[in-house]
């Protein structure tokens, strides 16, 4: 099957989803700290948890050698477990200490973990208490990154959700939908993007005629964009269910679009924003057409490698559906199974419409059974976490480790070639290596 870059599958029947439960081989939401602390260097992430949580973050961030750590763990001890009142006092003491030594911190995130949630340590209250005490010098927020509540990228969703109440309210609403002049509207891109990608997308929107574009999360934790009925929200990442809901509850309008992965997805994503702002078609096309043409040229050499290859995606980040759509439609891959840790149908409506009928979708995981399916299908490429990648390689199955996808600049038409390269590289490498 060759896939297609031209046919839109708008009439695809609703895809069925297999729900699976069992052992899940996924990260917890704490892992999001690894990229969020780089996005907002003036914030500090304090996990309240156990030695396990501390060990997790350092294992995930361990290759970076730090002169200035920007995250840490308040490790609960036996005394804290014995008396919660004590635990609260301890936390206050520890935060006071931390802030005295790092006066430049502007925002402090108290991040909840499995242990802190199981013992019902109320971090929301702690944040409130500390905010009063610190009186504006530092903002203290809280969110959960626990494994029992969040999977991997959902940690970012929770962190952004915690910032929403602090966003300034934008001035009054336009009378009716679409009636407001574009100038009164602001475009809000939600979801962490690489700096260079963000700059590029903002300048492209500017060329199309959208003047006011802001991002959440911002680069400085206190520089929060305004929100209100004039705000049009464009999600850059598919894992932001809670944040999207909170933003729409404040009157913002969500733009429905596929996610900006690949040429097609990125172009559709930008076009959806342009349509919302009622921009001039010709002007939009003048920006997008060359991007699309160039993007396709960049993808082409990788398509040569990927075309006809069979792909199996294990659940990890919720990026799986968008990746599958890109790899199937633009790179000609065949989809054996698309796993996702969590499927928000509302946010993925546009992606689901672009997947071919009959695509086997799985929500949740029973890792042993899923690996049995992998082995039975012997796909050409498996997208999976680092806990599984080398063992599968040793079984002779090519893999692409998925975490790289949240650490790499992959959004936008200009990045489509790089994105395709991430998948063609392991296959190219296998062809390259010779030991005889």
């Amino acid at each position: 099957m060759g896939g297609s870059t031209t046919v839109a599958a708008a009439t695809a029947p609703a895809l069925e989803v297999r729900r699976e439960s069992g052992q899940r081989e996924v990260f917890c939401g704490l892992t999001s700290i690894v990229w969020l602390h780089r996005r907002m260097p003036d914030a500090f992430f304090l996990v309240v948890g156990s030695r396990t949580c501390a060990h997790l973050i350092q294992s995930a961030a361990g290759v970076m050698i730090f002169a200035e750590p920007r995250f840490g763990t308040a490790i609960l001890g036996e005394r804290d477990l014995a008396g919660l009142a004590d635990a609260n006092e301890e936390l206050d003491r520890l935060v006071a200490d931390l802030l005295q030594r790092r006066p430049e911190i502007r925002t402090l995130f108290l991040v909840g973990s499995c242990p802190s949630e199981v013992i019902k340590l109320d971090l929301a209250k702690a944040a409130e208490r500390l905010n009063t005490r610190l009186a504006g010098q530092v903002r203290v927020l809280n969110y959960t990154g626990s494994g029992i509540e969040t999977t991997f990228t959902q940690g970012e969703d929770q962190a952004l959700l915690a910032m929403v109440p602090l966003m300034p309210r934008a001035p009054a609403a336009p009378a009716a939908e679409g009636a407001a002049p574009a100038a009164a509207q602001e475009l809000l891109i939600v979801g962490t993007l690489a700096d260079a990608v963000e700059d590029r997308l903002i300048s492209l929107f500017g060329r199309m005629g959208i003047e006011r574009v802001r991002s959440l999360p911002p680069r400085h934790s206190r520089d929060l964009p305004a929100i209100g009925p004039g705000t049009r929200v464009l999600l850059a990442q598919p894992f932001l269910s809670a944040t999207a809901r909170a933003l729409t509850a404040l009157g913002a309008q969500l733009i429905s679009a596929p996610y900006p992965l690949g040429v097609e997805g990125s172009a559709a994503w930008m076009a959806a924003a342009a349509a919302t702002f009622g921009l001039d078609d010709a002007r939009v096309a003048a920006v997008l057409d060359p991007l699309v043409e160039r993007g396709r040229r960049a993808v082409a050499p990788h398509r040569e490698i990927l075309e006809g290859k069979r792909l199996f995606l294990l659940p990890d980040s919720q990026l799986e559906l968008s990746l599958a759509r890109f790899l199937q439609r633009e790179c000609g891959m065949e989809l054996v199974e698309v796993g996702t840790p969590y499927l928000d149908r509302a946010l993925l409506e546009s992606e689901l419409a672009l997947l071919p009928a009959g695509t086997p979708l799985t929500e949740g995981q029973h890792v042993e059974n899923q690996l049995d399916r992998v082995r039975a299908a012997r796909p050409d490429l498996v997208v999976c976490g680092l806990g599984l990648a080398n063992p599968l390689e040793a079984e002779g199955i090519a893999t692409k480790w998925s975490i790289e996808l949240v650490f790499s600049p992959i959004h936008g038409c200009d990045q489509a070639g790089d994105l395709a390269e991430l998948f063609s590289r392991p296959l190219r490498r296998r062809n390259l290596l010779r030991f005889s």
Partner: protein
Amino acid sequence: MELTLWTYEGPPHVGALRIAASMEGVHLVLHAPQGDTYADLLFTMIERRQRRPPVTYTTFQARDLGGDTAELVKRSIQEAVDRFQPEALLVGESCTAELIQDQPGSLAAGMDLGGAPVVSLELPAYSKKENWGAAETFYQLVRHLLKAQMPAPGTPPPSPQRWRAEGRRPRVNLLGPSLLGFRCRDDVRELTRLLGAEGIDVGVVAPLGARPADLARIPAADANVCLYPEVAGSVCSWLERRFGQPVVRTVPIGIGATRDFLGELRQVLGMEEQPMAPESSSQLPWYSRSVDSTYLTGKRVFIFGDATHAIAAARVASRELGFEVVGLGSYSRELARDVRAAARELGLEALISDDYLEVERAMAEAMPELVLGTQMERHSAKRLGIPCAVISSPLHVQDVPARHAPQMGWEGANELFDSWVHPLMMGLEEHLIGMFRHDFEFVEGHRSHLGGQAPAEPATAPASTVALASGSPGPASEERTPVGTSDPSWDPTGEAELAKIPFFVRGKVRRNTEAYAREQGLALIDGEALYAAKAHFSA
């Protein structure tokens, strides 16, 4: 509650995982929340293993907490046994599961699992750590598997010299090597070769590579070699008590220690003394004596790691390389006594701490020219601009190299020489930078044999700045706000003279001069004062 930026050890269940993953035919069922499977990466990525660690996690989520998590535990145990058919099953909890108290061990005991031995682990996650967890797991497993063989109390212990009567070569077990231990793979290879050449056979190596059936053969050896006391200390003591097996406790890292180790082993086994010629077996003694190494004399070195490696490194550094050890410490509280004793011999007070910032402060204060530490000390050494080599876990992927890189035995000593001397500036470069300071390429702090361009920052940061910048509980606050009056300041001639001191000792000279000025009541330090201090301290 305790603020932790970096932790030297993981939680105790990671220690249990290390034992299970090191062995064959053992499976661990761990009651743990979704997300704790991150630990698999330690084995698949850092150790670069070709298969998943033999662990089944229950991975419960919040919605399971309302329901029957005990049922989930039982299901996971049953599935693990059915699928993997282990020869021995370990059952334990992670920190979160410990809080909900499902007692997975007793649940397993009440199940019909087809007869495989089941070992229930108690791993107190809020008071103990990784190495303790590994030692405890290894001990419980061995104890469980050897229960049936235990001699009746009062039975005289077997003679460690019975090999003679039995007409065979003496045989010893190597206990302690495990995954995520430092260079265990190659240490085992090196020692097996070395012992073979001495006429000694290796019986069981465990946990690394052993099956439960191998553990059952432990009593058949004449002695146990306790290679890594952090992991095997308690097992060896128990075997000594219950089976009368003597334990060889010298850890053969370095030339002297390897000789002592062989001496101790021969004595225990009742073998003849052998004249030993390490010079023909290892390059270290000659390399260290050769004139090229003269400049290593008195290099100030700060050592931190697990107790085993820190103690061994101190001996090698001070006696075999001619360094001056200016700091020695360990995060292994269980072996603190041994570290203290080793430090005392060097006229030092040992630093026993698992607080990374305290270690960083001690390092900054000692102003070493070389740091021998763990992966964590790389962070501090980087901020202080001090060359650093890793000698102990915790480690990262670069410390599980493809090449043969033991720490133990003769070849291990070669590896120590190369890897510790490499980060230092080579002698010629050191001289030339001391003489000519205006070079556009070989600027200060540059170590051209490392291929880098950027000069390292000299290690001049006083402890107070370090604590401030590193952002965590540090020294008492009066240390952070210098009480201006008594502190001497530098005048331009003083600064100029200071700049002439080679960068790697400049920190120490600065501190000594300031101390001298305070002592003499000088408010301003000029060039003369610096030279006066220099004479004062070398006198």
